[in-house]
């Protein structure tokens, strides 16, 4: 906001002051502090990303490169080996199954189910939420009630019933979990769209005669996706935990197939004598979910969501 300089005026002192470069903001933080903040900000993103990278590499690529021992059949002669035994990084369980291999394949299962669930839930939930908020009126009222019903309905029951009725399998579990993640994404998408609906660029788009689907695709989706994606990372962690709970209750993955929830459930039976069988998968689960949550937080910080 430079003021025009009155030409040839006697009061030169004032204009000079006004045209000078704006004085720097009172420096509350030193440049060193600023640098530290920037480093902290990138660490908050890259630490969880690298942890996730290591986990994903170990769970999906490592078993292809290197032949791990079978996660289901062990040699009974090797039963109950402590961690760091030769050939068995994390030791073996009471029937001789290699625990490292079991956890690797278990993590693979958990991640596959979580990602599948979240993608289905996100796609359908977004569609419902955006439609409800965009259409408004009775469509919104009906769709919102449906979402309310799904939220008030205990997800656990549905999941357990589906695994009973269709038989326990990875795919059925994914469907059942997705069904319950729909209303959560639906509400988030609806809320985000409602905020956008009254913004000037939406009015402009409407006035210029843009078709509804184009408004949704080009104006709404790009604006709500950052929020939804960072939210979905929280959702991934939650789905992994819930999937573990269902395995734990014996309704999820069929027992010989490895999963982190199964590992915790099996370790629990000998908890008093060998607590490490519970602790190792629990800590693995914790690290995985913490990395996902931190990644979500870092993305939210970067994208300035909420």
């Amino acid at each position: 906001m430079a003021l025009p300089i009155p030409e040839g005026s006697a009061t030169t002192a004032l204009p000079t002051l006004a045209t000078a470069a704006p004085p720097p903001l009172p420096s509350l933080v030193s440049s060193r502090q600023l640098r530290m903040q920037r480093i902290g900000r990138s660490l908050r993103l890259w630490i969880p990303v690298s942890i996730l990278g290591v986990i994903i590499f170990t769970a999906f690529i490592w078993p292809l490169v290197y032949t791990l021992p079978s996660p289901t059949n062990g040699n009974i002669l090797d039963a109950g080996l402590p961690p760091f035994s030769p050939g068995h990084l994390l030791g073996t369980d009471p029937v001789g199954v290699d625990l490292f291999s079991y956890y690797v394949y278990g993590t693979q299962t958990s991640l596959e189910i979580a990602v599948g669930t979240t993608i289905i839930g996100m796609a359908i939930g977004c569609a419902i939420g955006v439609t409800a908020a965009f259409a408004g009126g009775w469509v919104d009222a009906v769709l919102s009630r449906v979402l309310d019903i799904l939220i008030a309905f205990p997800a656990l029951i549905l999941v357990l019933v589906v695994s009973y009725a269709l038989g326990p399998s990875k795919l059925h579990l994914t469907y059942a979990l997705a069904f319950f993640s729909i209303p959560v994404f639906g509400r988030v998408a609806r809320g985000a769209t409602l905020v956008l609906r009254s913004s000037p660029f939406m009015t402009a788009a409407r006035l210029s005669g843009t078709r509804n689907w184009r408004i949704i695709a080009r104006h709404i989706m790009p604006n709500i996706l950052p929020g939804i994606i960072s939210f979905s990372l929280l959702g991934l962690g939650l789905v992994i935990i819930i999937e573990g709970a269902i395995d734990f209750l014996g309704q999820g993955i069929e027992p010989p197939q490895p999963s982190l929830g199964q590992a915790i459930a099996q370790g629990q039976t000998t908890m008093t004598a060998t607590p490490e069988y519970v602790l190792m998968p629990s800590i693995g689960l914790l690290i995985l979910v913490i990395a996902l949550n931190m990644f979500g937080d870092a993305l939210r910080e970067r994208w300035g969501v909420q």
Partner: protein
Amino acid sequence: MALVQQVQLQSGPPGAANRARRVAGSPAWRLVGRRLLAAIPVLWGVTLLTYAIMSTLPNTTAQAQLGLNATQAQVAALNHALGLDQPFWTRYWHWFVAVLHGNLGTSISNQSVNAELASKLPVTLVLLAYALVVAVVLAIIVAVLAARKPNGIADRISLAISMIGLSAAPYAFAFVLIIVFAVKLGWFPVISGSLGSTPMSYFKALTLPAASIGFGLFAIYTRILRADLVEQMQREDYIVTAKAKGVPPWRVLIRHALRNSMFTLITIIGLNLGALVGATAIIETIFSVPGIGQDLINGIQNHDFPLIEGIVLVFALLTVFGNLLADLMYAVLDPRIRYGTSNS
């Protein structure tokens, strides 16, 4: 949460006429009415959905009651006597009418579901209340300490703890608690099956289950409350006014900021009540707490229709009640906020 976006700030002079109109048309009471009306289709939908999903399962009620040696004819006769051979809508209608009369039916083991709920529900409610109260009190203390100096030591520690609480699976955390406090230290029982009759034995038996449920809640509440407090301390005019008046920082934080942040916290607590169902069911199963969460899991494993329906209804009521409570607290406690007339 969508409701919050529809709030209207009421402006206008606080004249006598205005006040009288406000009492007569009490927006809070109108809100109660509207919310209760909106809750009816939700509750009805939940029962119908549960009934429909459960009816896809093979019907084994008669077989279970008669034993494995029952003949086909006996099973068919009992099915007929119980009305289980009727079409879905007839069965649902009979059940629904009975529920409206306050009768939740008879469970697979020939017990009244009403009696079952009456004996088990209090335990679950005590457990939930215990977990909630401890989580809220601790969250307030930790959040205030953290918000006192953002990015300070206390803040960083609280962030780390709440991140762990947010990410820890309740069942895994429960096992860690059992290993440490029940097995190694022996302070609490591993199994909370018998609660005893004194408050002390109740407290002892329910501490570990409540801690397992409460840790996650504590983490969520701390994060939200801390964020809200920090934002208020930086933005709100009344905070600046209070500081300018020379009110001590602690007092500003507790009397001015915390009071207003409590509304956010209450909303979150209300909205979260329903999500506690799953956690309760698993934790009660792990500790064999005789509550309705464990009953629910047993019911599902035994295909016990009426019992599951009854418990789902209770949990749905809890969810709806929680949402209602959240809305009301917002409308009644915070005079800056009044709800608009549009429904959501």
